[in-house]
């Protein structure tokens, strides 16, 4: 079974981040949410593995260094 990759794995983190911000340039909040939702679904399909996706959801939910209100 594949494990969720939590070590740095991006070929070029800065290039990815810049592309992500560029995709959001000029969008209002509703369009931003919609873009992000589509992006998650595209990436999820690429990953495919249900256990990895559930681990990713769990990681995203608990990984917050701010106090949760």
């Amino acid at each position: 079974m594949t494990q969720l990759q939590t070590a740095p794995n991006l070929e070029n983190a800065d290039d990815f981040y810049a592309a992500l911000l560029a995709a959001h340039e000029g969008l209002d909040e509703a369009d931003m949410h919609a873009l992000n939702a589509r992006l998650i679904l595209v990436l999820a399909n690429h990953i495919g593995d249900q256990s990895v996706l559930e681990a990713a959801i769990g990681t995203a939910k608990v990984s917050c260094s701010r106090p949760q209100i």
Partner: protein
Amino acid sequence: MVAVRYQTAFKLYPYEKVADQDAPTPKRHPVVIVGGGPIGMGLALDLGKKGVPCVVLDDHDGVGMGSRAICFAKRTLEICDRLGCADPMVDKGVVWNIGRVYRDEREVYNFNLLPEDGHKRPAFINLQQPYFEQFIVEEIRRQQAAGAPIEIRGQNCVTALEQKADHVVLDVDTPDGPYQLEADYLVACDGASSPTRAMMGLDFEGRVFEDNFLIADIKMKADFPTERRFWFDPPFNRGETALLHKQPDDVWRLDFQLGWDIDRAAELKPERISERVSAMIGADIEFELVWTSIYTFRCCTMEEYRHGRVFFAGDAAHQVSPFGARGANGGMQDIDNLGWKLAAVINDGAGDALLDSYHDERKYGAMENIKNSSRTADFLTPRNPAHTLFRDAVLDLVEHQDFARPLVNSGRLSEPCTFDVSTLNSEDALPNGPARNRPGSACSDAPLTDGYLLDQLGDRFTLLAINTDVPHDLTAPNAQIDVVEISMNDDPTGALAERYLGENTSAVYLIRPDQHVAARWVKFDADAVKNSVQRALGGIRA
């Protein structure tokens, strides 16, 4: 009259009247450099050591006030080693490796610049810019005493220039009135607001970032560790960032992000600054304000760095945000690139096309610096809700998730530019050779039994032969070629083989006078070397 544009920290080249001022016809000089900052002086030193006569014109008579640039990268120190002035910089400078990133009051991660072993120079030193400039000028004085044809003229302000077919005519103002002089080549190293650029009516375009930063350099006796500390949203500067960095002489650089809508005059009041400083370092620590400044920044570049016989270098050609220390370090790479090319054309008869490659290579380097420093600015100064959303998401993840670390961007520190697409490069002919020393790269240092590789390379074309023989009487049109032979017995740590051979048992590298790789092969081949030297001199266009 020569206007005072800024305060100087100390005088280094007081005005003296020279014969040119009374000459019946303007005196012609091979190279005139406008601006006596680190970039202009660095170029003068390089040219003078190569025997190219040059005159530096500066409208002041010493080093500007304030620490300004404080981080000098390994590549800059290697260039200064070639120029003969790195030792006092490293002796005086503060070496640091550890960086810590905080969010609110908690450390979210730390990093070690961990320069790999086997380099003569550290990854970075912190040193106030006035010292950096002073050490270059001191080496110029030593070289002048030994006969190097360098002249520095303080309080000489260029007020007009006219470009002719084969030279430039300059009007220069001095305390004794105006005079004219001529230059075969002019290099403008006169800073971000370059008067030369303005006189020529040339554009300087790019992005302005809507943010203000306060620099407070303070002197204090504190046993804080020698580390770079960076805060996102700290209690003492809510919603903004802050930076703490050590300099020599018990001076610390504090940098506070202030936001866009500020009352500049109020923020610059010493009481207000002291209040901010105390909130950051602790109310019980005594300190003295050494230098303060509020800056905004922009990322700009000229379209072309060469205009006929006029060249632009350093901030005059391109300006970046301070994040990543890419300003002064980028400028030093400019003059490292231009110095040998001017010398090859003026002294050795190389063709004019070589000078075009200065723009090609250094514009490429400047765009890399602008890209990196703009990305940092986008991270630190989110311009829209998406920037804030992802920045905060990255910071939320980073404390517990290693993968998020490469996404945190509090500055991508200056690295030497690799001129991958330069027409001066020959095709890589070392099969699976180490990528770090592919044609276009600045040579990696490596320890030898006695000393370091880069100290062997000097500042002429060098044929570096590792574990193989090459003839010692190499000649090429328009270039002198030194030969450096190193055997495997002279590679005590194996670093040389790892960095230069890869799987190969031998290699021959053609290295440019700026210590960038021009070509490499497994064995010596006279025709291939001759071709590559010619190509590296701009003689063969792809």
